[in-house]
């Protein structure tokens, strides 16, 4: 994916750029707001990562102008710590997602990936087959090695979210948002507990473990060893 990073803190910009490049993205980094806006409007990017506080032009104005110019790229807003108002304003100005500093680089990578995938959503798969796991989203049936797995509705929903992001990390906060609409800053064990239960039912002893934990970040379903 082509990503434009507008961030004035050099060290942050360098780390973000390195990490995203490592994940196979093309990253252009600028440190000035005005320059960033020009690039965003002229260049063709899939995702924009915009810092809230910038020299020249602030992040809110950039997002606003970019949206006015009908640029369709996904936008992730980076806000300063604790600024509840900032986040709301950020989303209202047209950003698709936001991250609060300090953030884990892995979280940013996961969110960039999620954002880049948004447009082709209509063509959703209905039946998933991973290793010996078969899940039919329409009939709401899951089988492992042919045996029906009895899942509670919320467990099924969680499995569905993981499957739709197959091979990619879904972070805890993304799961919390999609499962219960909770946009909270919580280190609560809600997701961890629910995943453990799901895992107990999906990956029984002797099976290939499909639900993997990505340390400090989230979960992913995949058959790759």
């Amino acid at each position, binding site marked *: 994916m082509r990503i434009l990073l507008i961030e004035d803190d050099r060290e942050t910009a360098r780390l973000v750029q390195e990490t995203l490049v490592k994940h196979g993205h093309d990253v252009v980094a600028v440190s000035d707001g005005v320059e960033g806006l020009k690039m965003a409007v002229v260049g063709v990017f899939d995702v924009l990562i915009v810092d809230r506080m910038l020299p020249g032009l602030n992040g809110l104005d950039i997002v606003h102008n970019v949206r006015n110019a009908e640029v369709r790229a996904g936008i992730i807003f980076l806000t300063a710590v604790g600024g509840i108002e900032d986040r709301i304003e950020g989303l209202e100005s047209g950003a698709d997602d936001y991250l609060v500093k300090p953030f884990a680089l892995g979280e940013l990578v996961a969110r960039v990936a999620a954002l880049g995938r948004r447009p082709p959503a209509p063509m959703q798969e209905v039946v998933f087959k991973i290793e010996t796991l078969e899940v039919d989203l329409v009939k709401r049936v899951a089988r492992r090695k042919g045996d029906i797995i009895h899942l509670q509705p919320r467990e099924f929903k969680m499995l569905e979210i993981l499957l739709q992001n197959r091979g990619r990390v879904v972070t805890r906060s993304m799961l919390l948002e999609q499962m219960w609409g909770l946009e909270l800053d919580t*280190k609560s064990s809600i997701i961890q*507990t629910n995943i453990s239960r799901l895992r107990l039912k999906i990956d029984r002893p002797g099976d290939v473990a499909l639900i993997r934990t990505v340390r400090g970040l989230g979960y992913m379903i995949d058959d790759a060893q």
Partner: protein
Amino acid sequence: MRNRLTRSTAFRLAGFVALIVTLTNVAIFTALYFSISEQMAAHLRAHVDEVRKTLIDVEGEESEGFQELTTMVEGHARVAQSDEDIYFLIDQTEKRLAGNVASLQRFDGWRTIPWEDLKLVGNWSSHRASDAVIGRWTTIRGGYLFVGDGNGDIRDAQRLLLKGLLWGIGLSVVCAVLGGWLLGLKAQRRIVEIEEALDAVAGGSLERRVPRDSGADDVDHVAALINSTLDRLQRLFANLRQVSVDIAHDLRTPVSRMRQRLETVRAGPDCIDAYKEATDSSIDEIDRIAETFDALLRISEIEAGARKAKFVDVELNALLTNITDALEAVADERQHRLHPAQQTAGPVVVRGDRRLLNQLFLNLLENAIVHCSDPADIRVELAVADGHPVVRVRDTGPGIPGDEREKVFRRLYRLEKSRTTSGNGLGLSLVAAISELHGATVTLSDNSPGLIVEVRFTQS
């Protein structure tokens, strides 16, 4: 500073009132002046008419009657000076026959003639009460008769009225100015007090308040408003100060711990596993610090109360069902029983911020789950009491001792025995801040055994 008294509102108001009173006085006295003058002129004309009638009667129908009238008029004219009456009789050829004027033009109807226009005959004193004569001509058998009377009574009354008017205006102006002066002085004293208090506050004495007055007037109302604003300001300042102290106390410890760990690894042998372990634990430490820092700032932000503008209608029934659903597995894992939220018949709606309300109830339920060490029953109840939405979270755990119930809302405060459990001591502070923002009160009570947390939305 220029004379502040003349610029004070009360004083200007007094001046305005004085002007109004003066104008009102003038209007009333003018009306009186004219109606009394008119009334007295009518009296005077009636008197003149009476005299005329008497004289006409004297002339009568007989031939010597006219001669008799002439003698009578002559007699009247001689003694008329003191009464300031004018008599004048002429025959049909307009020849003067009798009277106390030398000549007088004939005219129709009533007329007011100034004394200086009259050619007086006889000894008249130069000092007169009247300045004009009101009279009319009467055509009689033998000629024409003029009878007039001085307007002295009218003038006296008018002079009296004018004097009254002047005194009235003078007195009311003096009263208004004096009253305004006193009022202005009082108001100015109050304003000076307010200014002094605000100056002191600006100078850093946040505990200073505007002295209250028992009068309960508008200035006192303003003073009350200023005081409540200052109360809030002082609370916010105290808040800020406490946050700084809290941060120093609770964040420096993990930072120094982290530093020591990194130093130790740096000084030790080049072992990649040791480095990895040190960085992992540092990342965890940093996450915890960031979380605490974030929570502290969020509490302050919520306490500052800036979010009310974004309030929307939030249905508590669905919100509570959602949260119990999210936490059920967590409770289950610790062998607690989290019952589905006990609902009301109809939807219960409060004005609020959905995100914060989610956080509020999530914190309360997580507290119950985390702090009950033995398997417990955890219930959430939604009810409406006295028209106010009430949410109760009950558990059957260890509860909180009565003397600790106030303290647990303090920032970073943790019950000693719960040090072993996770948490940063900010959960209930956040609950308190969110509740206050929503006009809700939080009370802790005994579930014997266990704890009841009640959130009562009183301003919804």
